[in-house]
């Protein structure tokens, strides 16, 4: 029996879950369902990372996405409460549908062209070494070739946290004249 057939079945199931999750994340009515769809997508992408020998990235995917980003989304959705679901609105639907279908059409055309080219020339995937994608070799490359971007990304995260606090705290009405003006326009 071909030992790769179970892997391909596994991969196909994960791909189906990924598409299902992406559709849920982008097109469901309720934001909670959207966040759950994103969770399904993230888990299936982590499975794909495992099958591509990217073990460390699969764990990072689970920890950062499923553990932090989806939870952050859920916090905000719960903070907004029922108003997180905006009612259906037909204004500008035609324009939006036109833009969306234009994007989808060009994407389908591109996928078709690439698929045509790829089917004709099958790509030989080289066998990966034992250490490919594990924490040791990944970390060695990260800290030898990409030290500066790594340190800069820590600065980016720091700035993002401070900025998030500053933005979410918002402008209080008593802070300045503009804040008072916005508060008054809200009341009227």
């Amino acid at each position, binding site marked *: 029996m071909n030992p*790769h057939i179970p892997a391909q079945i596994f*991969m196909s199931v994960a791909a189906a879950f990924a598409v299902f999750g992406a559709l849920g994340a982008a097109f469901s009515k309720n934001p909670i369902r959207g966040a759950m769809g994103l969770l399904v997508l993230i888990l299936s992408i982590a499975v794909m990372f495992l099958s591509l020998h990217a073990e460390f990235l699969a764990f990072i995917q689970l920890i950062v996405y499923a553990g932090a980003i989806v939870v952050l989304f859920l916090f905000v959705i719960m903070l907004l409460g029922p108003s997180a679901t905006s009612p259906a609105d037909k204004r500008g639907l035609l324009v939006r549908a036109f833009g969306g279908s234009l994007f989808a059409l060009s*994407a389908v055309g591109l996928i078709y062209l690439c698929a045509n080219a790829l089917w004709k020339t099958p790509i030989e995937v*080289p066998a990966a070494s034992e250490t490919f994608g594990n924490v040791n070799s990944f970390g060695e490359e990260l800290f030898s070739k990409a030290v500066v971007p790594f340190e800069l990304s820590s600065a980016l995260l720091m700035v993002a946290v401070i900025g998030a606090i500053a933005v979410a705290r918002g402008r209080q009405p008593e802070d300045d004249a503009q804040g008072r003006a916005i508060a008054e326009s809200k009341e009227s």
Partner: protein
Amino acid sequence: MGTDLPLFLYVALSAILFTIGGVGFMVRRNVLFSLLSIEVLLNAVNLSLVAFNRLRPQNHTGHVLTFFVIAAEAAEVAVGLAIVISLYRLKRTVRVDEADLLRN
């Protein structure tokens, strides 16, 4: 792992996910769904980066780039959701087309 890994399927799946995310970003008006669609887009990009890195197993360039994409995305989500909360406190809405504070 074998050498007959269906790399083509990974790239095709990545393209399909990118299309779904892009259409969702354009069509939806709820800002939460815009952010969720951006997540779908970035996940599609990550998948294709890792899949192409599998073709060159002697280095980890795609993996490192994916790592930085994940870091940037965490920052983007934190700031984006803070803006959503700020918008909601000012305008009591989460719809993108009602965020017009800079118009006048």
